């Protein structure tokens, strides 16, 4: 079992920590670790639902609450909800509690297998200590540490902070329960199949202006620039000023004498360049010598 951890950045935007999880098919999956904030929000979302359910049950049981039966029932419901909510949903919904669905995260096995019932049980038994205890301690310090001088209470509180700090310090954002169970909480990925940019020029047909590039011109930029250009082409329409600006800069850098004044010429030029550049870099990739970035 090997887990590669790396932090991905794009410009000054942090994409997140990714891990490569091995799979039975032999192709590692690249998953993005859910952030601390996402974990907290997911937890609050789950707690909110639990409190809401308790409230409704309390209303239903209100006529009997004075009696022993209602009280016994309420206590059992609280126990079952506190301990059962996460286990039930993580088992039945394959690692996704309602709160996790809300923030688009899920629990997965760190070794790429199915999430086993025992793992779910382990990570949720420790939840009691990791979440309820600090909450109770912060909310009602007196019930938690009943006696002792002030500094003893202080130390007890500090110790509780350990639980909150562990996932923050760990690169893979694992809390103690995750460590014990061998699980990770990852971000759910979404992606849609977008058009193939390298085909659009062909479809534009013979009426579109043609652009040609020399091998020297295709030897300037690298993979990074190609993919930035891809994003620009996907995000901007026919006549965007950004597109024209980018086209002008690239033409200047290449020393290309393309005429970019006509309507749609900038886009046509960029698409033609994208296609030629991608063909060139993919060939080099196959030969094992593609450039990552342009030469400075």
């Amino acid at each position: 079992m090997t887990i590669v951890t790396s932090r991905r950045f794009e410009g000054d935007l942090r994409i997140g920590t990714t891990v490569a999880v091995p799979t039975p098919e032999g192709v590692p999956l690249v998953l993005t670790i859910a952030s601390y904030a996402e974990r907290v929000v997911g937890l609050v979302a789950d707690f909110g639902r639990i409190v809401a359910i308790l409230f409704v049950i309390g209303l239903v049981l209100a006529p009997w609450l004075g009696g022993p039966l209602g009280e016994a029932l309420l206590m059992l419901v609280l126990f079952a909800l506190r301990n059962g909510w996460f286990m039930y949903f993580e088992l039945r919904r394959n690692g996704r509690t309602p709160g996790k669905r809300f923030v688009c995260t899920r629990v997965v096995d760190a070794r790429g297998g199915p999430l086993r019932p025992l793992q779910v049980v382990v990570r949720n038994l420790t939840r009691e200590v990791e979440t309820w205890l600090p909450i109770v301690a912060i909310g009602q310090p007196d019930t938690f540490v009943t006696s002792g001088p002030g500094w003893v209470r202080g130390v007890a509180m500090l110790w509780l902070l350990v639980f909150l700090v562990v996932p923050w310090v760990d690169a893979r954002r694992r809390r103690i329960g995750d460590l014990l169970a061998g699980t990770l909480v990852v971000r759910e990925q979404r992606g849609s199949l977008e058009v193939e940019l390298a085909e659009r020029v062909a479809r534009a047909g013979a009426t579109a202006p043609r652009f040609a590039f020399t091998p020297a011109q295709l030897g300037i930029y690298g993979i990074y620039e190609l993919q930035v250009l891809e994003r620009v082409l996907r995000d901007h329409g026919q006549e965007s000023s950004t597109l024209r600006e980018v086209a002008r800069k690239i033409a200047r850098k290449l020393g290309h004498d393309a005429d970019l004044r006509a309507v749609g010429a900038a886009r046509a030029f960029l698409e033609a360049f994208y296609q030629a550049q991608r063909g060139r870099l993919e060939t080099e990739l196959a030969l094992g010598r593609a450039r990552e970035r342009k030469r400075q």
Partner: protein
Amino acid sequence: MAAGRAVVEVADGAVRRLRSVAFRRDREASWQRLERLVGRIERDGIDSLGESELVELPTLHRAAVSSLSVARAISLDRSLLEYLEALTARSHFCVHATPSDPWRAFVAFWTAGFAAAVRRSAGPVLVALATVVLGVAIGFVAVVQDLANYDLLVDPGMAQGRDASASVESLRAGLYARDASAVDGLTRFASFLFQNNAQVGILCFALGFAAGVPTLLLLLFNGTLLGAMAALFHLRGLGVDFWGWVLPHGVTELLAIVLCGGAGLLQGRAVLMPGQRTRAGALRAVGGDAARIVLGCVGMLAVAALLEGFFRQLVHEVAVRYAVAAATAAFWGCYFLWPRRTAGEGAA
């Protein structure tokens, strides 16, 4: 490197030569088919798929995984790569989902998994037992020597009137309560006891990773409480009656707490002496057994709470109380130590 080549790459010509474009054209229909199936599973569950679709799913998944592997090697279309990464991750979790046959897992757990986990953890369980016994001894001796120690050891709120100044009559009444109000409170009492004890058991387990120290303290503290109370009743000549009051449910309850403590110590040992593994690895290795034990103990505590809440308040014959205590002890002894096949291990 291409300086010598006089070829000019023309846009139109390049399209046909891009392997990644042909690759995508050949396979995108199967990706989209997989995407539709996965979307349905995520929305409506795996049961919403028909038989032929269920057969299709793993094939499509493997095809997508192999596409991803190829795409990583040959394609520089970032949008395509991200699409395939996301699609295979989603279908991975559909194909490699939690195996769920809850009933079989439940039966296997209670007939084999729980007892086997306890037997494998005999060492830590014995240490936990010794700690509780030590706690009982400390509490007992301390109170027998000086009754004033009782109020130090037992929190007044917890003693419920069973404090050092209590008379023999009031103590006896507590052991053999049979008035209407007491019976009325039984249901509430049983449910409170269950969730309270289960909470202590889970704490014993969950705190184990801190080298087992909090677990040992919890066990020792609970033992001291019991010992102190026993001493109080002993001094008033109610020793036999006290144990008759405690043991019918106490055998089950104390055993469950000791087992939870054992589960905590199992983790403590993994943290202190991980051997050749990393600490996280050692914790993971014992996590399964520890969780099995705690789960089983929650069930045991439910039984104990029923015995405590109902049986104890309704049966007042000391001999019957001792007989029940002996019977539960024999039952748990057989349950954990009876030799059996180990085929069901790991199922739960």
